[in-house]
């Protein structure tokens, strides 16, 4: 029997880093596994290297990004084991000891852990529009990733680009690029019902900084003279082998812009495949229009040894994720008998109050940027829904209405939808929304894909080599 660490944390974004730092202070033998070569997750992507090698870019990215430096510093000095560049492809839950299978630098390792905390963050909601598979079309998150990690920006050689969709990230990326001297040709905003957000304004105003930041971004874009078209109702990207033109409906008429790049965004949703693969109970969150693992106030899931924190458990934003990471670390320490309930309640008070504050800001943002139906269930029959298997919207509708295909897993049998390399990550939500729309039932009744491990690519050779794999059992504490 191999020795087990107390807590395995999967993901080194704000939730994972904060959880690891807190867990180590509470005396838990903690191991963090993260897919990226550096800590920070997507929100603080590449921050250590950026601060060291191109500090002037910190101004472009802004103070919210720079704030990640403090968190990464605390993480680096915490007494934990940190495996960067480690892809977790399966977690085998068990009451006493979970087994975490991961791949790192070409070999497979197994980590035994009494508790597992999933902090794998968010991904962008799929935004299927005609032409979204063309080279030159990326997500806003991708645009921001290359800006942070590589100092790369679009619009080189006089190229033109637009940002299309809605959500805080879209405005933030537009402002960051503008600061870098790279001006978008246009912002095509799809927000459709501002008034619906109004009742949630008090919670938003109570959370520190949100309103000022949002208005600040809008002011910045206006001052820079970035054309913003609000209330765009239809989008199509055209091109032969590359995006060349974007066609959009705005103000009741059709417009066209020549483009080299298009950045799409329709909010973020939990990055769910690992949680689904563990069969954790999930809840349909209608305000966020996404599934999230069903959790107690401390991040405990329906499986006793598994916890979830940060955006992976429902979107809370970077600061909320950080607070929730700490809260979950206290819960793990309590469950493992390192602290008692009373100490847990007392010590976690600040983190819980911070989390509540950030949670209170969400309903306003969720309502303001709630995607309109045409962005989550594409009306055009020709729009690709499953990018991997190239299944189009018309085919999915036809199978539901004519063949009575009831759910996403039956859809797999019909057309292999969701069975390509991305394992449904980029079509899952669209497919369940479309089935629900056709059947005229709530999405919660349609369910979700049954996700099976491995949730990351692993070869037969990797699996065969497992018996001789290096086992990182003993934790250096």
């Amino acid at each position, binding site marked *: 029997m191999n020795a087990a660490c107390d807590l395995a944390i999967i993901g080194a974004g704000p939730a994972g880093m904060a959880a690891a730092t807190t867990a180590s202070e509470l005396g838990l033998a903690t191991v963090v596994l993260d*897919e*990226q*070569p550096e800590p920070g997750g*997507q929100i603080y992507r*590449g921050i250590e*290297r950026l601060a060291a*090698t*191109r500090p*002037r*870019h910190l101004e*472009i990215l802004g103070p919210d990004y720079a704030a990640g430096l403090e968190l990464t510093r605390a993480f680096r000095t915490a007494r934990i084991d940190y495996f960067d560049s480690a*892809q977790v492809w399966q977690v085998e839950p068990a009451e006493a000891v979970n087994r975490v299978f991961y791949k790192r630098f070409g070999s497979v390792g197994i980590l035994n852990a009494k508790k597992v905390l999933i902090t794998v963050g968010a*991904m*962008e909601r799929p935004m299927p529009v005609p032409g979204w*598979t*063309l*080279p*030159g*079309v*990326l*997500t806003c*998150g*991708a645009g921001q*990733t*290359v*800006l942070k*990690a*590589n*100092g*790369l*920006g*679009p*619009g*080189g*050689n006089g*190229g033109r680009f637009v940002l299309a969709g809605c959500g805080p990230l879209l405005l933030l990326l537009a402002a960051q690029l503008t600061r*870098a*001297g790279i001006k978008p040709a246009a912002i095509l905003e799809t927000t459709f019902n501002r008034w619906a957000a109004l009742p949630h304004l008090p919670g938003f105003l109570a959370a520190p900084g949100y309103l000022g930041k949002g208005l600040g971004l809008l002011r910045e874009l206006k001052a820079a003279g970035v054309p913003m078209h609000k209330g765009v109702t239809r989008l199509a990207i055209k091109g032969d*082998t*590359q995006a060349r033109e974007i066609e959009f409906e705005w103000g009741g008429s059709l417009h066209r812009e020549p483009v*080299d*790049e298009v950045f799409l965004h329709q909010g973020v949703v939990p*990055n769910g495949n690992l949680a689904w693969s563990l069969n954790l109970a999930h809840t349909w969150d209608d305000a966020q229009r996404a599934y999230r693992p069903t959790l107690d106030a401390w991040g405990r899931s329906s499986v006793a040894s598994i916890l979830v924190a940060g955006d992976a458990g429902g979107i809370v934003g970077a600061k909320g994720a950080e607070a929730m990471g700490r809260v979950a670390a206290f819960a793990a320490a309590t469950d493992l008998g390192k602290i008692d309930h009373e100490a847990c309640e007392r010590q976690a008070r600040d983190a819980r109050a911070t989390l509540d504050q950030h949670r209170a800001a969400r309903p306003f943002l969720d309502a303001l940027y709630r995607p309109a139906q045409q962005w989550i269930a594409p009306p055009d029959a020709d729009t690709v829904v499953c*990018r*991997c*298997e*190239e299944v189009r919207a018309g085919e999915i509708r036809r199978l539901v209405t004519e063949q009575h295909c009831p759910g996403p897993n039956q859809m797999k049998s019909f057309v292999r939808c969701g069975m*390509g*390399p*991305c394992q449904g*990550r*980029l079509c899952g939500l669209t497919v369940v929304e479309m089935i629900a729309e056709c059947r005229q039932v709530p999405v919660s009744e349609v369910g979700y894909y049954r996700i099976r491990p491995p949730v990351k*690519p692993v070869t037969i050779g990797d699996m065969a080599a497992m018996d001789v794999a290096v086992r990182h059992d003993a934790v250096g504490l």
Partner: protein
Amino acid sequence: MFSLLPDTPRERLNVVINGKTVSVPPGFTAAAAMLLHNAGATRTTPINDEGRAPYCMMGVCFECLMEINGEANQQGCLVIVSEGMRINTQHGKREVQA
């Protein structure tokens, strides 16, 4: 087209994209190297042979599958470049080699 912002360090290393040697800053992923060098489609799909290119840059979409140092189907956005790395676009399905 993607290009480097001002105030980016000058250090470079060489990688070979589709047989052509190009220079990229250290710390780049293979997918970012493809964007910098304007590679366009980095693979064609197994179903309809459609051209695709990096889309999410964070490991979830699997559009940036490419051949790296002879091994096909690598997620280009998760592989950090090293000196002399050979990066190739890949076409259609993998085939069994006799």
